[in-house]
C-alpha cells in the first residue's frame, strides 16, 4: 500500500485541517498553543474581536448534538469576525435521508470557507476533508470515539498554563477511556509534547489492556493510578455504559473510580484536576473536588475559546 500523506497537512507540512492530534509535529502543536496565548487577551478586551476571519463563512455542522462545544466554536469564530452558520443536521438533512457527501456538496456550493464537524462515526471528518472543495478547511469537533483535537489542545494549554513544562509530568486519565475521543486526543497530545508518564485508569471494561499500544500505562486501581500525579483528567461517564453491561451502576463506578478529596490526597499536593465537561457530580467526580482548589475545570472552558480561535485562524491562513 502507498503511504498516504497525512490529510491535515499540506505539502509544506502546514496545517490545513485539524482532524486529529495524532501525527502532528510537536512544533505545530506548540505553535497553536502559543497563538492561543495571544488570543486570551482578546477575550478580556472591551471589544472582543479581531478581524482575522472577516468575510469568511464558518459552518458548524453538528451531526451529533452538542450545545457546549458548538457554542464555544461559535464564540471563537465570531471573535475572529467570521460569519457563523449553525446547522443542526441531526434534526434536518440526515433525517430526510440526504447523504453526508450530498450535504457537504450543497454547503460547499453556498461558499463555505470552513466546516466545524461533529459526527457520531469515527473518521467522518476525514471523509469530508477528502471530498470538499480545496479551499475549504475542516475542523474536527469530535468524531465517534476517535478524536476531539481542540479539546486535547485546550487541555494541553491548561496543563502548560499551570505546570509550564511537560517533560517531568505524571498525568492520569480516569474513566471511560475506550469510548473517549477526548482521552485519545489527550494521549496523542501528551506523548507528542513529551510527557513521560501517562496512566489510563479504570475497570477492564473501560480501559482494556490494548490501550498500552498508544503509549500509556494501564491501571485498574484508582489509588495506584493517581499516586503522585501532577494532572488528573476525569472523563464523563455516559449512561449507556450501564446498559451495555460495562458497569453495574454509576454508584459502584463512583465508589471505585470517582474522584473524592480523600482519593485526591494520593496525588501531588499541587495536582490539578481537569474535566472536559459537562460533569456528572457524584458519578465521576465529587462536588467538593469539582469546585475545590485543585479544580481547573472553568479555566479549561475559557482557554478553549482561545485555542479554537488559534486553530481556526491558523488553518484559514494555510492553502491546500
Amino acid at each position: 500500500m502507498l503511504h498516504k500523506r497525512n490529510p491535515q497537512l499540506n505539502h509544506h507540512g502546514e496545517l490545513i485541517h485539524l482532524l486529529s492530534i495524532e501525527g502532528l509535529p510537536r512544533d505545530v502543536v506548540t505553535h497553536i498553543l502559543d497563538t492561543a496565548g495571544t488570543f486570551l487577551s482578546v477575550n478580556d478586551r472591551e471589544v472582543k474581536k479581531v478581524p482575522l476571519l472577516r468575510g469568511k463563512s464558518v459552518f458548524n455542522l453538528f451531526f451529533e448534538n452538542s450545545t457546549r462545544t458548538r457554542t464555544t466554536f461559535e464564540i471563537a469564530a465570531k471573535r475572529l469576525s467570521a460569519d457563523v452558520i449553525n446547522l443542526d443536521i441531526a434534526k434536518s438533512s440526515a433525517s430526510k435521508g440526504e447523504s453526508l457527501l450530498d450535504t457537504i456538496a450543497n454547503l460547499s456550493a453556498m461558499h463555505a470557507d470552513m466546516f466545524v464537524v461533529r459526527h457520531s462515526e469515527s473518521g467522518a471528518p476525514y471523509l469530508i476533508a477528502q471530498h470538499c472543495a480545496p479551499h475549504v478547511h475542516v475542523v474536527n469537533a469530535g468524531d465517534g470515539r476517535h478524536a476531539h483535537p481542540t479539546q486535547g489542545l485546550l487541555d494541553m494549554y491548561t496543563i502548560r498554563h499551570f505546570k509550564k513544562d511537560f517533560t517531568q509530568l505524571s498525568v492520569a486519565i480516569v474513566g471511560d477511556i475506550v469510548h473517549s475521543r477526548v482521552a485519545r486526543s489527550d494521549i496523542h497530545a501528551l506523548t507528542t509534547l513529551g510527557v513521560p508518564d501517562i496512566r489510563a485508569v479504570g475497570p477492564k471494561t473501560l480501559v482494556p489492556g490494548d490501550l498500552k499500544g498508544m503509549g500509556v500505562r494501564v491501571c485498574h486501581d484508582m489509588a495506584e493510578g493517581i499516586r503522585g500525579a501532577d494532572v488528573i483528567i476525569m472523563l464523563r461517564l455516559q449512561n449507556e455504559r450501564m446498559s451495555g453491561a460495562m458497569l453495574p451502576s454509576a454508584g459502584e463506578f463512583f465508589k471505585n473510580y470517582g474522584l473524592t478529596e480523600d482519593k485526591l490526597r494520593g496525588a501531588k499536593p499541587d495536582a490539578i484536576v481537569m474535566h472536559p465537561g459537562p460533569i456528572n457530580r457524584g458519578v465521576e467526580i465529587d462536588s467538593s473536588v469539582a469546585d475545590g482548589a485543585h479544580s481547573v475545570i472553568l479555566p479549561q472552558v475559557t482557554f478553549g475559546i482561545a485555542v479554537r480561535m488559534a486553530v481556526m485562524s491558523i488553518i484559514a491562513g494555510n492553502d491546500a
Partner: protein
Amino acid sequence: MKILIKNGRLIDPASGRDEVGDVAIAAGRILTLGKVSADFQAARTIDASGCIVAPGLVDLAARLREPGHEHEGMLESELNAAAAGGVTSLVCPPDTDPTLDEPGLVDMLKFRARKLSLCRLFPLGALTRGLAGEVLTEMAELTESGCVGFSQAEVPIQDTLVLQRALMYAATFGYTVWLRPQDGWLGKGVAASGAVATRLGLSGVPVIAETIALQTILELVRVTGARVHLCRLSSAAGVALLRQAKAEGLPVTADVSINSLHLTDVDIGFFNPAMRLTPPLRQGGDRDALRAALADGTLDALVSDHTPVDEDAKNLPFGEAEPGATGLELLLSLALKWGADSGLALPATLARVTSDPVRVLGDALGSLSSSAGRLVVGGVADVCVFDPAATWVVTSKALASQGKHTPFAFEATGTALPGRVRATLVAGTVAYEAAAA
C-alpha cells in the same frame, strides 16, 4: 463449435500436466490435449503463445446481488465480470432479497444464468428460512433445484440448538453446510480488535469472535458428523483450530478471501472505506498464517468474496460504509501474486482456485465433479487462457463488475497486478475474450 487453442502452456493442477501444446474443443468438451491432429477443422483458433491454458477458475464465494440489490450488481454484469476474471464456475451465497430459501428462486437464478452462458452458477440455499436462524429450509427441494450446499451467509445462528439440528438434518442426506465462523455478539464491531482499531476509535471484532464460533461448529461436527465448509477464515488462531480439526479427521474444509490473504488492518490508513470488509482485516501475523495455511493446503481454496457495493453505500464514514469489495476480476491476479510471493510453482498456485475448490464442492457438482476445475479429455471445456507476464492497473474503468470499490485499486496501492486473462471458455463457448492489444 470447434475451437482450437494453440501453442499454450497447458497446466492442469489435478493431473500435474504441464506442457506446451494445443487444446481441441468440440461440442462443449475437450477432445484432445497436447498434440492435436492436423485434420481437426477448427471454426476458431485462439493463439495462446506465451500464455497459460488452465482450467477455468472456480470461485466459492461471489455475490451477484440478484435478486434484491440490483443497484449494486446484476446477474449479467457480475457474470461478465466472472468471465473477464477467468472464472467459469462460482458459488453464490443465499443473502439476496428475498433470500434463497425457495426452490422457485433458485430455479429462476439458475435458468437466467444458463441463458447468459457466461459462467456456471452454483447457488447455496439458505440453511434456515429467511436466514432467521429458526426454521429449516426444504433442503431436498432446494438441492433438486441446484443448490450445492446450505449457508447462513453473514447471519450467524445464535441458537445453538437450531444450529445442531440444522447440521444433524443436513448430515442425514449428506448436504454440506457452509458457515462463516463468527459469534453473533462478539462480531458486531467494524474493524479487527487491535492497535489500529483502538487508535482510530473503531469498534473491534476480537479474534475470539471467530474461534469461539469455530469451537462450537467443530464440536457440533464431532457429534453430528455433518460435512462443513468453513468460509473465509481471518485469524492465525482460527487456522490453528482448523489444522487440528483436519488432523483429527473431521469432515471440514475451509477457504480464505483474497482480501485477508493480502491486506492487514494497517491498510485502513485514514479510515479508507474500501477496507471495510467482513471478516475484518486482521494483523500481519494473521495474514502470514493464512498465507502459509493456503500454501500447505490446510486452507483448501482461495475465494474472491466478490461483493459489489455501490457508491452511495461505500462513500460513508468507515463504520457506516457497507462492507465488501469487488473481487471476481482480481482473483487470478491475487492468486498469482500470492503464489509468487510464497515461492510456489504455478500448478500449485492454480490448484487453490481450480481443482481444490471443486474438491470442496464434491458430489454436489454431480457429473461435473470429475471434470470442472480440470483439463481432462472428454471433460467439460471450461478454460482460462491468461498471460502470466502481463500486468494490469486496477481502475474502475478496467472493471466489468458494477462494483468498483476494491482495496487493490491502483490509486490506493500504486502497484500493477500480475496476470491478464486473454480468453475464457465456458462449456466450449467463448465467454470472454480480451480486446487485441
